[in-house]
């Protein structure tokens, strides 16, 4: 006598395989769901921006009259922010990464700093805004200026740069270090001349990610109290400013009153997305170009 009824198994098998197939397409549909949403979003925003996004939109200043309003001031503000965020996060981020990877002994202090950085990465951006409001705007008296915004943003994206730089440094093969030490180079010479040059692609990719994040972040800037008023195009880091995402924010919430503001917001979003797309393309090119060199 057989313990297993073959016929029964066969029958069950058919339903099991069918189920497998059905679920496979269900899972595929779920996977595509996000992409479809993304496509609708971009199409929709693009349609809203048609007729509003032209060259004068980029070069005009902000105005309450939607017909002549442009984003020159906001774009300049965003650029100014990057002028601070770029060097500050590069210095602090790479410095921290070198310290953790090359100098710090793997002990309490090391894991404390490491844990601290990963916890900071999870702190909501609005909380960084509160920190910036207290420390930079009020205590240090910078007001709602570019430097206050830039420093707040730098602290916010710092963990991204640190983690990317750490990974880049860690992936520099040991034999390159050995070669350098073997020549009698000191530790710092080895880091400066061998490790960092080899880690540069990874560090740059991380920097681009961090800057993309900083370009799109809105919440911390709102918390710093940047007004929706018409502000002159900033000329120094101590000037007041507005930035592209801030512009999107104010135009969006005011679109209930002036319908055309919705189109202006959409046009600004397109500008923002194009900038982010270009930056990420550069990151991908860097990554592909420098992959597997050893």
């Amino acid at each position: 006598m057989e313990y297993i009824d073959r016929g029964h198994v066969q029958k069950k098998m058919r339903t099991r395989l069918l189920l497998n197939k059905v679920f496979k397409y269900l899972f595929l549909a779920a996977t595509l769901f996000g992409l479809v949403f993304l496509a609708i979003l971009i199409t929709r925003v693009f349609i809203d921006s048609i007729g509003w996004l032209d060259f004068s939109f980029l070069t005009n200043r902000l105005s309450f009259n939607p017909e002549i309003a442009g984003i020159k001031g906001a774009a300049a503000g965003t650029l100014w922010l990057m002028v601070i965020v770029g060097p500050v996060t590069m210095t602090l981020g790479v410095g921290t990464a070198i310290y953790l990877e090359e100098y710090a002994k793997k002990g309490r202090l090391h894991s404390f700093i490491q844990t601290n950085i990963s916890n900071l990465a999870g702190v909501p951006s609005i909380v960084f805004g509160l920190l910036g409001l207290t420390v930079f705007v009020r205590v240090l008296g910078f007001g709602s200026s570019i430097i206050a915004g830039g420093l707040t943003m730098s602290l916010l994206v710092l963990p991204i740069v640190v983690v990317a730089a750490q990974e880049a440094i860690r992936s520099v093969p040991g034999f390159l270090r050995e070669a350098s030490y073997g020549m009698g180079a000191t530790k710092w010479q080895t880091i400066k001349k061998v490790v960092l040059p080899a880690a540069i692609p990874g560090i740059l990719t991380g920097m681009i990610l961090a800057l993309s994040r900083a370009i799109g972040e809105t919440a911390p800037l709102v918390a710093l109290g940047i007004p929706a008023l018409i502000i002159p195009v900033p000329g120094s880091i101590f000037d007041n400013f507005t930035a592209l995402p801030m512009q999107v924010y104010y135009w969006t919430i005011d679109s209930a009153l002036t319908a055309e503001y919705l189109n202006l917001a959409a046009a600004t979003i397109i500008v923002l997305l194009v900038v982010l797309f270009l930056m990420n393309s550069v990151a991908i090119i860097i990554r592909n170009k420098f992959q597997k060199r050893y």
Partner: protein
Amino acid sequence: MSSLTSFDPEESKEKNENQSPTITKDRPKAPVYQTKALNLWYGQTHALKDINLPIFENEVTAIIGPSGCGKSTYIKTLNRMVEMVESVKISGEILYRDKNIFDKNYRVEELRTRVGMVFQKPNPFPKTIFENVAYGPKVHGIRDKKLLKQIVENSLKGAAIWEEVKDRLHENAYGLSGGQQQRLCIARCLAIEPDVILMDEPTSALDPKSTLKVEELVQELKKNYSIVIVTHNMQQAARISDKTAFFLNGEVVENEKTDFIFSTPNDNRTEDYISGRFG
């Protein structure tokens, strides 16, 4: 033109101090390195056990032994690279030119400037050929462009690779073949005019032809440098070395003239090993 002549020969004479510059086979040469009661642990692993070993000037010393016996560990101890492993603990002394390299005040960078190293896998920097060779001199503060050029040329000649690369000095070193890369690494090492060259299985990643080239090079280099070479290849050891040290389980079983080791070794274990009975 023999490029080696351009490496100030006076220098090597000075090293010998009161010895005659013409070294003959029978005369005892000055020891460059003296290893005394050296013990080394990786954490709990006792990797080197009570090593006593002299290394002589202008000789090729081969280190042989089965895998894991501590050859690499020993050679890396000679320029203190082994200390890059955090768990390493060392006792005993190694005298280099009569100074203990483990002395508190001894600067490792100083030591490594005098003792060059060539690694098992060719490890050029991802820079141009020129920059690779100029790396050492630059690190040690030589900025003069003309001098650097001269050093690069001489070193590449010294490593017998000049003819192959002279027209592509500013191309990336990774475009070279494995054998060329290894000779480039030797050139890089020569650029700081070391006194001793340590080589850890320098030919094990190379094809037979490149191996032959490197072996010939070693023969040539020994006129001006003292060389310590780790090898798994008995023929190679027999071909190119003057002395051979046989390591087993972290101990030196035998250290003798190469001819002697390969003909009439004192220890059975040495005989077993070189005749291929184990390892």
